[in-house]
């Protein structure tokens, strides 16, 4: 086996910078180090030009009508905060009701919690057992005071893709601002702010082979024009939406990453689906009692979230420690609760503790997939041989009838 260890299969957490992206960025640290806001000399002009070029590329990737609709931020968490807090503050005279969903990223959920303290009323829509929001639920939740709907493009844990286009039709009809945290899906699945009637969209570079620390918020400027109250005060950068000196090298890298996605995204996604299916089949054909979390049909290309019944997720991660993955097990978080996303799907706590998320990306190979599938297969068997639950299951004991001592 010629694979190099450790293997990175956690591409939902972050991705490595593509060498082509890095090459474009480097001059902007040293020779072209100007401040894009410096209007009085060539250093500033060069930086501003590079930023505007990146803006155009990113606008193109998401189907924005103008590069002026791209507001650079420090990343998607900031974009989510700016979108929700900024829109709430601007539209609060119109109403105070926000609609989102239970499986959103914490950057959305915790921002909503903060807004509730400031007088917002938030509806957290449920999801079906594959993790999808029903557009009809959105329609029904809309009331006279609804000002904002925020539903992510694709979930970071289970890879489920939401019916964004259908939701966008509803919000547009009702004249409600529609935000989508699109970080996981950008460049990988269909995403077009025009076609999907999206008004605000959060994106980030480091999930698409760009650098960390740079993201953007798409803010619609026409039909309808969407307004925000800035959350960062200062020099009035980004048309007053986000003050702060621009991260020029980061933005240049973001732009290049977007350009690569425009060129190669479709072919790459097809390759990811093939790799993911290879991984899934090679595991599921050989390991019984494994369950897929999320939707089969509406799924991010590189996402495979599997529960290995009777094997605890963190124990599993340790057993395959040369492979970087993540788990919905409680043990991986500081709380002792298993993943709130898996719980929202109605996955039992036992299976939530047993989940492993594989995130395939641009630099994973077929050899790596085969190596990981073999390793997982043998380790699940070893851990089950060590699992009292597996033994009980094999003896025909229904674990649900056992009186467990909670602790």
């Amino acid at each position, binding site marked *: 086996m010629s694979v190099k260890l450790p293997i990175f299969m956690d591409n939902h957490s972050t991705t490595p910078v593509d060498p082509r992206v890095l090459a474009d960025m480097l001059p902007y640290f040293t020779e072209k180090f100007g401040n894009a806001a410096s209007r009085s000399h060539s250093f500033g002009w060069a930086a501003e030009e590079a930023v505007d070029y990146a803006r155009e590329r990113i606008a193109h990737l998401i189907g924005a009508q103008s590069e002026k609709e791209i507001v650079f931020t420090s990343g998607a968490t900031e974009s989510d905060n700016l979108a929700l807090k900024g829109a709430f503050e601007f539209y609060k005279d119109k109403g105070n009701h926000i609609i989102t969903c239970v499986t959103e990223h914490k950057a959305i959920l915790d921002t909503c919690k903060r807004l509730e303290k400031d007088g917002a009323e938030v509806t957290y829509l449920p999801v079906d057992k594959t993790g999808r929001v029903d557009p009809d639920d959105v329609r029904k939740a809309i009331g006279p005071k609804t000002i904002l709907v925020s539903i992510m493009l694709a979930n970071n844990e289970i890879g489920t893709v939401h019916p964004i286009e259908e939701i966008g039709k509803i919000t547009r009809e009702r004249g409600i601002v529609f935000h989508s945290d699109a970080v996981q899906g950008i460049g990988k699945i269909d995403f077009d702010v025009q076609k999907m009637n999206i008004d605000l969209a959060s994106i980030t570079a480091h999930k698409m082979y760009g650098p960390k620390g740079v993201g953007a918020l798409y803010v619609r400027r026409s039909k309808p024009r969407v307004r925000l109250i800035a959350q960062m005060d200062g020099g009035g950068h980004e048309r007053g939406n986000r003050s702060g000196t621009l991260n020029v090298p980061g933005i240049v890298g973001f732009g290049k990453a977007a350009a690569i996605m425009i060129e190669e995204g479709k072919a790459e996604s097809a390759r990811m689906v093939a790799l993911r299916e290879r991984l899934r089949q090679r595991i599921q054909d050989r390991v019984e009692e494994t369950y897929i979390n999320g939707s089969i049909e509406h799924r991010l290309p590189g996402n495979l979230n599997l529960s290995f019944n009777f094997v*605890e997720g*963190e124990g599993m991660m340790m057993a395959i420690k040369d492979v970087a993955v993540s788990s919905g097990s409680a043990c991986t978080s500081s709380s002792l609760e298993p993943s709130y996303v898996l719980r929202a799907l109605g996955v039992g*706590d036992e299976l939530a503790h047993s989940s492993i998320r594989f995130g395939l990306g641009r630099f994973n190979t077929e050899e790596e997939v085969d190596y990981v599938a073999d390793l997982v297969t043998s380790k699940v068997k070893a851990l089950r041989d060590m699992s*009292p639950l597996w033994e009980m299951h094999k003896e025909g004991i229904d674990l649900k009838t056992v009186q467990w001592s909670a*602790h």
Partner: protein
Amino acid sequence: MAYSEKVIEHAEHPRNVGTLDKDDPNVGTGLVGAPACGDVMRLQIRVNDQGVIEDAKFKTFGCGSAIASSSLATEWIKGKSVDEAEKIKNVDIVQELNLPPVKIHCSVLAEDAIKSAIADFRKKKEARAAAK
């Protein structure tokens, strides 16, 4: 979170994994934890006529620290009298394995498993004495 070397060593080479006959009168079985909480330990002891634990086995569903805690527990109690084994405290396990605060519950579970196995053994013994 980084694991201590001892946790990794035990998790990769667990001692005394296995099953003793739970119907053997000299075997005590402790089953603690819950699948919904993410860890379940089963610890078994076989006690000889002198009251010494001559064999101990475990099976654990849980994270690496839970596996290591139960592996260490079986190692420690083997060769000890039941009374001595009962004195093992979770803090001893925490210290030996360098468990971080979020993993202390693993050591608590291992202590509970020892106590529960001993209690089961004593119950069986008393039941036999009463039957005589």
